[in-house]
């Protein structure tokens, strides 16, 4: 059985790397957590091609949950998903750090796309302490 993959999209390559690293440490090596950080030429921003490639790498056949940091990252993700017109990748409305780690841990036990998406979106209402 394939695991749902996770894609982290951030305006900052460094931020995306850090979130990916944290989630990998918590979810273990079996979940594919891919990042698309920064715009073209290492600027702050987001890049269609990086997002599309990250989704491809994350997909093992059972779907991909995509999280973005701020406004225009979401526009970029939507743009990529619309153009590729597939049902296997789902953009979720969730805080980047909490949503990514929650989704990755749920993905690591083999839950499907809906459950992994829900875990990410439940992070919106989760208290830190």
């Amino acid at each position, binding site marked *: 059985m394939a695991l749902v993959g996770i894609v982290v999209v951030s305006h900052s390559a460094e931020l995306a790397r850090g979130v990916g690293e*944290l989630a990998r*440490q*918590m*979810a*273990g090596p079996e979940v594919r957590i891919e990042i698309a950080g920064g715009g073209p030429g290492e600027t702050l921003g987001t890049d269609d091609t990086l997002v599309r490639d990250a989704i491809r790498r994350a997909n093992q056949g059972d779907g991909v949950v995509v999280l973005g940091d701020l406004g225009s990252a979401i526009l970029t993700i939507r743009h990529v998903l619309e153009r590729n017109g597939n049902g296997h990748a789902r953009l979720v409305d969730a805080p980047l750090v*909490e949503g990514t*780690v*929650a989704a990755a*841990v*749920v993905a*690591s*036990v083999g*839950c499907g796309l809906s459950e992994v998406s829900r*875990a990410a979106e*439940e*992070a919106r209402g*989760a*208290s*830190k*302490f």
Partner: protein
Amino acid sequence: MVQASSEHATADAQVAMPADVDLHARPAAEFVRTAMRFSSEVWVAVGEREANAKSLLSILALGARRGTSLRLRAEGADAAIALETLAAAVSQLRD
């Protein structure tokens, strides 16, 4: 120790966190992954606070420190085995 009642399929258990492990990032994820193997609803309480054992962010928010006593509670068909497994997993958590 796990006390189970088969008619109601509920179980309770108490287990202490290891003396050198806090229930933070990686151990919390391990705890949640173990809980998710079972169909029963599982809760864990520390002091006055109780959290869904299958919700990573809720478990992290408990902030259970090393040596803290966790009270586990489960409801469902596999409640007893869930708590037995979870209690054993807690005692073996590593950083």
